[in-house]
């Protein structure tokens, strides 16, 4: 079957299952496995469709005479779309398997049919966005995706915070959608003239001749709109609100793949629709990427809600992807196709990697919350003994996202570093000096991410249980949840150990977009050695690192175990301190304190210590109350002024409304007179 038919089958299967699910709402115990199995099948079909497209480099298009008369839906499956089909499909396959067990946990508490229905629509919407080849179908799919995810965030709608989060999400999503609509409007209008409609296809936009100003307007409108969806700082505020309150399988998808549809949009608009741009566009993308990466990880470090922490890490990782994208744009504008290909492959590789490890981490967080009914890390601890599978798989996610070899996060960050290190080839003296500083910021981001995940894993899974409630009735999650996580973890390892294959498949994307290739150099020395530019420049071998570490560890282990020395279990030593309680362990806040102190100027921090004692003195204190409040500065800097301004304008306009019919009649009369005077 040709790939486009496979992709179409996948979308139709999802829509069909969605249409079926309301009729099965009385048999939810049956609906859950059925719907999520079909979703797994559909997602896997999408992976297949995308993979075949990448493998053969096919480029299929079709038009469906649905929608408005004279405006058919145009579909197209080229390698770029195929790659994003793989990204979306792969994670949704794993998450759908996971959902069979996860959603069952809601049975008996609330009806889950809406969750199933909107989950399926959400998946279909994401696939349709990638397949769309005209502005009309694109925006329709975009809105389907946004609306479905809004209802998913609202799923547990009895809580006020969920309703607030969903509202903010919808607001930002629509501000973004307006910008995307305007961007397409500019391109379509200039393609066919503003009085005709046939410029709405992407083909027409590709052939349009845009003046530099209009091209910049179109690109930055699109960049703004997609950034709002992707959570680029300063448009990130919805993300840490919406991700934590959604069901965890949905947060995995939202964070893992929904954000990536905006990356797809940016690549599509910049490299496919506009193509010809000056370097400073890339520079701006790079700056926003760096800002998001550094601030995202710093905000993440300050969180103690597990899912909120992961949400801020999505901001960071979107930043890392944008860094690669910005570098690719800079290199393209100076006509270095090979270097641009390296940067773009780094960005896209990180897109795939982030989908997998963030999906894995959100699934793991879901399993933890499922088991403990707690989102606050400060109330957890020692879960590694109670959830052995979940903790091991979550650890793989932590290692991957921290960019440590031999896992996948390392490969894409390393490729991005290589792209950075090639920037001295640029003919622009200012860029030569400034771009390497970006590499230093990326290094800072990577190291802070590692610190953050030591904190997240250490506080949640290690040590002793520190909650106020007793850690009873906590047990390992079911088979389907473990399977979903294990598949994602295995992919993380595979993508880290065998990057040459993946890059070989991805290479067709930059080749089609701007004629740059890296696979000929990247895989020159066989599948074991990754040499992105030339082997004299840099090389990395995932298999050797992985097998080398394993081999030495195995040899050391065996050598030390021939003698069979005894292991004696004893109470903690801790320099001889006695009576250690679990409350004496380092907390998440304590762990982040040194970094909070160094980078504190970036946050709005309020710290209060209250001493409860008879004489109000620290020496005789009976109890201490410590309160720490850390806020995102962007609320105060950007959003509060905006909200105040909106209210002020509304009040001012509201003065027109007197509530008396005479006044309104007078308005009509005056308007008529004015119109007559001007147009008459």
């Amino acid at each position, binding site marked *: 079957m040709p790939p486009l038919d496979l992709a179409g089958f996948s979308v139709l299967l999802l829509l069909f299952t969605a249409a079926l699910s309301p009729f099965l709402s009385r048999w939810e115990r049956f609906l859950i496995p059925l719907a999520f199995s079909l979703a797994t099948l559909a997602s896997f079909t999408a992976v297949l469709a995308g993979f075949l497209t990448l493998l053969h480099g096919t480029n299929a298009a079709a038009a469906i005479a649905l929608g408005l008369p004279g405006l058919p839906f145009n579909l197209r499956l080229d390698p770029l779309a195929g790659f994003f089909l793989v990204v979306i499909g792969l994670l949704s396959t794993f998450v759908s398997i996971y959902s069979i067990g996860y959603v069952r946990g809601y049975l008996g508490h609330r009806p889950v049919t809406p969750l199933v229905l909107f989950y399926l629509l959400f998946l279909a919407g994401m696939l349709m966005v990638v397949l769309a080849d005209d502005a009309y179908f694109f925006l329709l799919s975009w809105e389907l995706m946004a609306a479905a995810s809004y209802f998913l965030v609202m799923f547990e709608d009895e809580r006020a915070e969920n309703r607030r989060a969903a509202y903010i999400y919808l607001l930002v999503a629509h501000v973004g959608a307006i910008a995307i609509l305007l961007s397409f409007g500019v391109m379509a209008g200039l393609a066919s003239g503003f009085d005709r409609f046939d410029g709405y296809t992407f083909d027409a936009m590709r052939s349009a001749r845009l003046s530099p100003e209009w091209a910049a307007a179109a690109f930055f409108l699109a960049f703004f709109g997609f950034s709002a969806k992707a959570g680029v700082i300063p448009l990130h505020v919805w993300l840490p609100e919406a991700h934590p309150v959604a069901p965890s399988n949905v947060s995995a998808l939202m964070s893992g793949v929904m954000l990536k549809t905006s990356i797809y949009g940016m690549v599509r608009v910049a490299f496919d629709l506009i193509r010809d741009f000056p370097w400073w566009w890339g520079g701006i993308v790079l700056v926003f990427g760096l800002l998001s990466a550094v601030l995202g990880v710093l905000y993440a470090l300050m969180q103690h809600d597990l899912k909120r922490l992961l949400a801020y890490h999505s901001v960071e990782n979107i930043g890392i992807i944008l860094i690669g994208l910005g570098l690719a744009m800079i290199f393209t504008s100076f006509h270095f196709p090979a270097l641009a290909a390296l940067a773009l492959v780094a960005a896209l590789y990180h897109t795939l990697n982030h989908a997998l490890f963030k999906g894995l981490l959100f699934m793991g967080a879901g399993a933890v919350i499922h088991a403990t009914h707690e989102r606050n890390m400060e109330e957890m601890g020692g879960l590694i003994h109670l959830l052995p599978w979940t903790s091991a798989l979550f650890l793989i996610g932590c290692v991957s996202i921290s960019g440590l070899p031999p896992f996948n996060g390392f490969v894409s960050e390393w490729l991005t*570093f290589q792209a950075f290190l090639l920037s001295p080839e640029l003919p622009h003296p200012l860029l030569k*000096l400034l771009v390497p500083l970006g590499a230093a910021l990326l290094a800072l981001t990577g190291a802070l991410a590692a610190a953050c995940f030591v*904190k997240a894993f*250490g506080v949640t899974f290690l040590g002793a249980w520190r909650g106020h409630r007793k850690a009873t009735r906590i047990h390992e999650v079911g088979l389907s949840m473990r399977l979903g996580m294990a598949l994602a973890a295995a992919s993380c390892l595979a993508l880290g150990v065998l990057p040459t294959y993946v890059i070989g498949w991805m290479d067709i994307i930059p080749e089609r977009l701007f004629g740059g290739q890296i696979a000929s150099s990247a895989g020159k020395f066989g599948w074991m050695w990754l040499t992105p530019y030339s082997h004299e*420049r*840099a090389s990395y071998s995932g298999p050797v690192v992985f097998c080398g570490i394993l081999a030495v560890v195995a040899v050391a282990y065996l050598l030390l175990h021939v003698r069979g020395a005894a292991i*004696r279990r004893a109470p903690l030593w801790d320099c001889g301190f006695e009576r250690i309680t679990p409350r004496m362990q*380092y907390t998440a806040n304590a762990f982040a304190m040194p970094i909070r102190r*160094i980078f504190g100027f970036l946050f709005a921090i309020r710290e209060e210590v209250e001493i409860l004692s008879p004489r109000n003195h620290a020496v005789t204190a009976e109890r201490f109350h410590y309160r720490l409040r850390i806020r995102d500065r962007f609320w105060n800097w950007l959003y509060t002024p905006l909200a105040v301004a909106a209210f002020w304008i509304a009040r001012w306009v509201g003065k027109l409304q007197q509530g008396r019919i005479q006044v309104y009649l007078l308005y009509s009369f005056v308007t008529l007179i004015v119109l007559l005077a001007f147009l008459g």
Partner: protein
Amino acid sequence: MHPFAIELLQLLMLLGLAPAFAGWVKVVKCRLQGRTSPGILQPYRDIGRLFVKDVVLAENASWIFRFTPYLAFGVTVLAGGIIPLISVDLPLAATADIIALVMLFAIIRFFTALAGMDIGTAFGGMGASREMMISSLAEPAMLMAVFTVSLASSSTSLTHMVTVMAHNPLMIRPSLAFALIAFIMIALAETGRIPVDNPATHLELTMIHEAMILEYSGRYLALIEWAGMMKLMLFFSLGIAAFCPWGIAAGGDPPDLALGVAAFIFKLMLGGVIMVLIETGLAKMRIFRVSEYLGSAFLLATLGMIAFFILE
């Protein structure tokens, strides 16, 4: 000699010489501070004794705590197979460039920090938190230093850097001078030496690395100590390879190799003396001064880069 034989020789040298090097540093330090030294062989005796002793494991230690020493040891040995010590003709050298190598050491740090948090003591968490803070500040400085060094040979591959450096005529490069100072400062922080951390202290409030491994005993502690000694030696080797590789063998000729070994040991001993001079001359700084210290290392490395673009 066959490349694989050189590789094996290098690994054996690393495993065998690392304790001697640690002993050498101790001996020089004792001399300088007017104390009697335990001798250069003391680290061997320490490790040997620890390997024989039984393990006392904290009650709630998980597999992470038991796995970390093996991992630290494995990663360090692998890193030792990548850095060219005596010859550039290494089959494993292409496994990782200098950036990947730095990240290999980050694995050890990540897991050691987790092991510190695993047993649930206040000290473990304290060490983990401080170590991760210092490393996150050291990383950007390290990258800038690497970047500056890589400009001269336009490569981050260690063997290629060594070849270019060793074969080019000797000239004073201001960029490399800046990068060297930055590298020394970062290496002191990364290996936990004075003025950032003190490997000899178990004074509760000042320890960083020691706080994380406080609960280890027996063979686990031996592996960690041994890996730590090798890491110290490898950071010196990294500096030697990047800044003064002269004398290193280009191929596998036995006379060249002998010269390479001799040059390496001489440079290592000299480097140890320099480090002791720094350690004896400085006092350990407050933890919150470390950000300024590493910030200046970062600035120096950046100055090196600017010097390269302007002067060279």
